[in-house]
């Protein structure tokens, strides 16, 4: 019993008080049309930047500050870097000309991105350019030192910090610093992030409803444990029956031919893939005995692919978690410039017998976060879909963002916009749809007065895919919070070589965009949001 802390001291303490995509959309691109006029930044510091290096705050281990002059369209700002107990690194950027608001971005995958990483800096700078005080955190560990979820091995506290604590403490600390720096309180606070960052945003609304006034949660990892079971399911299926990139390209063509026209337009996008019921053994060409080339699927491969669409189920045939959607396997050009099925590398391993990216994320979750103590040598092939899902209960309670009680968030005036790509191949989009349907009902009957979901046809995880993947939901949520203007639609764009190749309205779920019947199908103005 070393390092004992008596209750008396605890009481005194209480008196004081994928990894990839986080923000891939175009935040603030529609600022000029905002009625909130939020880019007007006419508040100036009341302290020097250097003064902030002497702050003493709850849980603060270290703090430093540096005045950074304007350069390359980045406005002059004070950068505050610090560490919260035990290893939560954070950065707050405070513009010399402030709009009175706070903007925070999150972390992908198992987090651990340093606030000084390029993407973190770029995301904060987007807010800084619009006049916001901005912040980000590593969530308590550095992924380059403790990769994946291995961070729990050095300190179990890091699991809680990753699950939710680091974001909350960073938000509270950053707002306290901003308020002291400018001599006035933050007027409004906003969150905008994707994937695990979407999960972080939802948990903020659920557990710390006073932290943010407006939240944009893109492709949120609502159910980290459900995803994990799904990814193990897919990997086990593909271990038994690997498929090649060529077969996936063939499958993509089969699915698009069957599903594309159901929404009334043959445009390479499936408005609502739930309307297309796939039976792979009937819809795809099945190889003759003794044949196994890219023109067909063997019966075992067809079974494996059907399993991925269906999602995991138990021996009674009861669904454990949703699968991936028709259209998610579509061939598109990735950021590397290469064209391939959306399943390649993420769901389907690049080479037979290897692990996919989704599986890697799930396997790390199982090995380090689900088991206590961690089991770094856990063999996913032993996972039993009838008896083992309950193993994930503990981690689910800590890290899943499934709490549908948003009453306090709503009562505080909070507004939440969720977006999800139907063609997401990292996170199953139905986890977002199911959460939204449950939450909007639980907090209703007028739940859409504070929460709206916008499904994006053809968009992959956070961005990418064939669909219009660029939008400015953060401006929409700002206008909703500050002006009371609920978004009736959000214009989304597909940008190719710097040009808008296609635009479409995103519609508040369950509405869909319906073509007017005249004009280009690549221009949003020729579509209306209608009931399905």
């Amino acid at each position, binding site marked *: 019993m070393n390092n004992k802390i*008596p209750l008396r001291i605890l009481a005194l303490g209480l008196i004081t008080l994928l990894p990839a995509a986080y923000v891939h959309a175009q935040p603030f691109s529609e600022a000029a049309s905002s009625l909130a006029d939020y880019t007007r930044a006419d508040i100036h510091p009341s302290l020097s930047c250097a003064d902030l290096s002497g702050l003493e705050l709850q849980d603060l281990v270290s703090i430093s500050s540096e005045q950074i002059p304007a350069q390359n369209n980045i406005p002059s700002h004070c950068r505050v870097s610090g560490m919260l107990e035990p290893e939560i690194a954070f950065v707050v950027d405070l513009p010399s000309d402030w709009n009175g608001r706070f903007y925070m971005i999150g972390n992908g995958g198992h987090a651990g991105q340093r606030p000084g990483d390029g993407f973190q800096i770029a995301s904060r700078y987007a807010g800084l350019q619009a006049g916001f005080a901005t912040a980000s955190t590593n969530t308590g560990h550095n992924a380059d030192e403790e990769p994946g979820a291995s961070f729990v091995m050095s300190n179990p506290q890091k699991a809680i910090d990753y699950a939710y*604590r680091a974001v909350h403490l960073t938000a509270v600390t950053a707002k306290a610093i901003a308020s002291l720096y400018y001599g006035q309180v933050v007027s409004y606070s906003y969150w905008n992030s994707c994937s695990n960052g979407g999960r972080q945003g939802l948990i903020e609304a659920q557990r710390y409803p*006073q932290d943010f006034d407006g939240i944009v949660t893109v492709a949120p990892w609502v159910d980290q444990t459900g995803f994990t079971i799904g990814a193990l399911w897919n990997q086990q299926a593909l271990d038994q029956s690997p498929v090649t990139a060529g077969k996936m390209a063939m499958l993509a063509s089969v699915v698009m031919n069957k599903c594309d026209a159901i929404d009334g337009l043959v445009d390479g996008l499936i408005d609502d893939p739930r309307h297309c019921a796939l039976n792979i053994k009937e819809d795809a060409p099945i190889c003759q005995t003794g044949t196994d080339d890219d023109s067909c699927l063997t019966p075992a491969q067809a079974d494996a692919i059907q399993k991925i669409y269906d999602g995991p189920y138990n021996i009674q045939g009861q669904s454990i978690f949703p699968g991936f959607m028709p259209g998610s396997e579509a061939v598109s050009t990735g950021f590397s410039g290469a064209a391939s099925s959306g399943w390649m590398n993420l769901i389907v391993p690049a080479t037979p017998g290897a692990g996919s990216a989704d599986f890697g994320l799930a396997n790390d979750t199982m090995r380090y976060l689900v088991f206590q103590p961690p089991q770094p040598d856990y063999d996913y092939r032993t996972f039993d879909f009838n008896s083992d899902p309950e193993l994930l209960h503990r981690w689910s*309670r800590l890290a899943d963002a499934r709490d549908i009680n948003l009453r306090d968030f709503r009562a505080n005036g909070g507004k939440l916009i969720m977006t999800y790509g139907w063609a997401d191949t990292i996170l199953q989009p139905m986890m977002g749809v199911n959460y939204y349907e449950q939450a909007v009902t639980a907090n209703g009957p007028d739940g859409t007065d504070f929460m709206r979901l916008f499904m994006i046809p053809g968009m992959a995880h956070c961005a990418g895919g064939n669909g219009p993947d660029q939008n400015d939901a953060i401006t929409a949520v700002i206008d909703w919070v500050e002006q009371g203007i609920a978004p009736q639609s959000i214009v989304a764009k597909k940008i190719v070589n710097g040009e808008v190749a296609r635009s479409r309205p995103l519609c508040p779920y369950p509405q869909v965009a319906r073509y007017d019947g005249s004009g280009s199908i690549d221009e949003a103005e020729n579509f209306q949001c209608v009931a399905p």
Partner: protein
Amino acid sequence: MRSALTRQLFAGIFLLSPLSALAEGAVRVLECTIEQTCDLAASCNPDSGDISFNMEPIKLAADGAGSYLIRYEFSGSTFQADMEARSFAGPFMWDIYEDRNTLLANSEYRFLWHKLSLSPVPQSDIHFLACEFTQ
């Protein structure tokens, strides 16, 4: 929400106090030694053995009240359950199957662990514990 933000600012100023010791949202470990056990007839006898309660926070208010996961080993079995805390010092309450467990502090280092079975008729065991939070 502005009034809430104003409260947060003042909270932030309070945070400047150097008195802090408990990190908000920290995992807590309560390590205890069983000193005495009493049965439903209030008959008490000396007892022994160590037990460590691991408490992982899920959602807490500023005073430490809220929800945790509790995990501990007792009599050769590992137990895990959702737990409610009414403050940072308890009472801590959780259910294991039909048993209602309550952990009460009666001083900094003394706790009472009450295990109430509801079936077939209400009856309880009470353990008197010497405990300290080591995290």
